[in-house]
């Protein structure tokens, strides 16, 4: 009798539990069904506020003196702009209009960081950095939303470009891979590099600018100092299990022009006397054997002898309030006319100085793409946004 009662109780308990489980499952399925069937409520309304810079932010500059071409890349509005290099925006003028603008979704050009003008054809080469993996090339007359005449599938995160015209080779720095890649100058499509400089021995640490001394067969590369450490013999790469990060001081590393693979630099320029602080694009004056550095985070231009090594101080420095240099990633030399042109990202401007300028000197000319004294917002590829609830402030990382 007791046994039978217990058995009935057990069955009852089982039935209740089963019903409960089925009920829960049913509710869950119904809820899921409801979710899957739901129509999203579309909130299609105008923003309350928009924070956006309406003017270009110049990231790189190139000059062709014979044609008086000055080409700049604009990282804010995603444009390539050409000016007459002799322009000088009057102080009262709002801005100088460019001769042409290349921009749009057909261009394969977006967050551009590097630019090169072919000295013969006057084609314009531009490098995309974090958002598109292309190196598009535009003919002399391209304008508007023009498709490039050719484009190369480039590694992700290219920044600097330099060309050895003698050998028709194109050198690029790759920030995301800590490497320098060398392609045929006419490379296009999925063509692979001729050679790559990469690996722990290279001391390429977040490389940015690149300059060639063809006469002395040297490559100069500027590095921000964000290093990846991989054990010898490992495949490397940021996401490999054995690779980790390390902060090193910023530097300029020097390699043989034909270097390939995991090669040690011939020498390194690094240390507190160099004043490096985000050393970005480089320009080299072969005749004077001087290396010019756009020193982005220090609002300065540094000049070194090409033979300087170790913790050498610059031989000249353009820096100070009179220069109006603000966050200069780009620099180009006009050897024929004895001028330095500086892409000053923080002021919507290209600034010109004599080759031998030194100290807190005023620019000899300015081409402005925005009103004077209006600082650039410097929002570039804002991958995220934060909000400081205590101060009611919006935080934007670039």
């Amino acid at each position, binding site marked *: 009798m007791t046994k039978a009662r217990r058995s009935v109780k057990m069955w009852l308990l089982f039935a209740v539990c089963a019903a409960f489980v089925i009920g829960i499952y049913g509710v869950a399925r119904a809820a899921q069904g409801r979710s899957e069937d739901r129509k999203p409520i579309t909130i299609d309304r105008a923003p309350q506020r928009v924070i956006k810079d309406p003017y270009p932010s110049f990231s790189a500059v190139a000059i062709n003196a014979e044609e008086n071409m000055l080409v700049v890349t604009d990282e804010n509005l995603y444009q390539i702009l050409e000016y007459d290099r002799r322009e000088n925006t009057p102080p009262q003028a709002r801005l100088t209009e460019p001769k042409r603008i290349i921009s749009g979704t057909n261009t394969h050009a977006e967050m551009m960081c590097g630019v090169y003008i072919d000295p013969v054809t006057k084609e314009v080469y531009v490098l995309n950095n974090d958002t598109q993996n292309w190196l598009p090339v535009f003919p002399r007359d391209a304008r508007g939303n023009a498709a490039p005449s050719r484009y190369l599938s480039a590694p992700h995160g290219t920044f600097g470009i330099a060309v050895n015209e003698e050998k028709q080779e194109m050198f690029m720095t790759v920030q995301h891979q800590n490497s320098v890649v060398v392609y045929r100058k006419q490379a296009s499509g999925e063509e692979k590099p001729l050679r790559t400089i990469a690996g722990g021995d290279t001391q390429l640490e977040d490389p940015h600018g690149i300059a060639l001394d063809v006469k002395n067969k040297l490559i100069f590369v500027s590095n921000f100092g*964000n290093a*990846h450490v991989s054990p010898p013999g490992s495949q490397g790469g940021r996401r490999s299990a054995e690779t980790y*990060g390390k902060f090193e001081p910023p530097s300029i590393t020097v390699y043989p022009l034909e270097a390939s693979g995991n090669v040690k630099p011939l020498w390194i320029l690094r240390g507190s006397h160099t004043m490096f602080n985000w050393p970005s694009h480089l320009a080299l004056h072969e005749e004077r054997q001087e290396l010019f550095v756009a020193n982005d985070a220090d609002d300065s231009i540094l000049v070194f002898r090409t033979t300087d090594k170790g913790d050498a101080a610059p031989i000249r420095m353009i820096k100070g309030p009179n220069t109006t240099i603000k966050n200069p990633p780009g620099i180009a030399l006009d050897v024929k006319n004895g001028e330095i042109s500086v892409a000053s990202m923080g002021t919507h401007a290209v600034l010109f100085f004599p080759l031998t300028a030194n100290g807190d000197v005023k620019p000899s000319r300015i081409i402005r793409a925005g009103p004077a004294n209006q600082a650039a917002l410097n929002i570039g590829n*804002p*991958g995220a946004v934060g909000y*400081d609830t205590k101060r009611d402030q919006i*935080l934007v990382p670039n």
Partner: protein
Amino acid sequence: MHDIRYDELHDEFLVVNPFADAILTFRRGIAGQESPVRIIQGPHAKIGGNRLDVDPVHNEIFVPDGNKIRVYPREANGDVSPIRVLEGPDTQLTRAESLSVDPVNNILVVGFNKGERDPDNGAILIFNRTDNGNVKPRAIIRGPKSGIIRINQMAVYPPKKLIVAAMPGLVDMMEPTNAFLGVWTYDDNGDVPPKWMIPIGPKTTLKKPFGVVLNPKNKELIISDMRLNGVLTFSVPEIF
């Protein structure tokens, strides 16, 4: 940098420097070139990811890295190993690129990326905040109805158990047609459309939403847009 998080409780903000594999914590109120107050970096820390979130209540930092989520002590400094790693086949983590943590309801939401050559679209995976090791997600939101292609920054709203995700669309398209900002709930599972969506287009002016953060005090969503190189605020009282 692809993420930034403000920790109101400790008045600090955190970012990942992906080029140096480091989590940097700065005190707020600073400007210029002040150094971080703490850096997590090194062979034991092995950061890996580009994004993060901070749980100021339980003092933890979460970092997604493809097939794993690493969790660090918030106050860690130096080469500190993660205290938990969510990893293994049951987690179904493959392209974890973004996340957000809810310290109130103890939920961790993870967003998947989609690269140019990835065949599958992204997804949102929902875990318990304290999950560790090879643990199955509580729910997965993915599929054509969800509209998820790839996810950048994410946020959660604990009082209403909401997941907010910035969806910039296909990576190789400059102005993708399928980008939007989507809002789901913790209870969603399967191929579920968002409960609310802010579309791209002429009215919102959005083109490629990359980042999102909530301002509950003003019932606002703050969105960063990569193609606009701008930040836009939207009044959305209905979701708060």
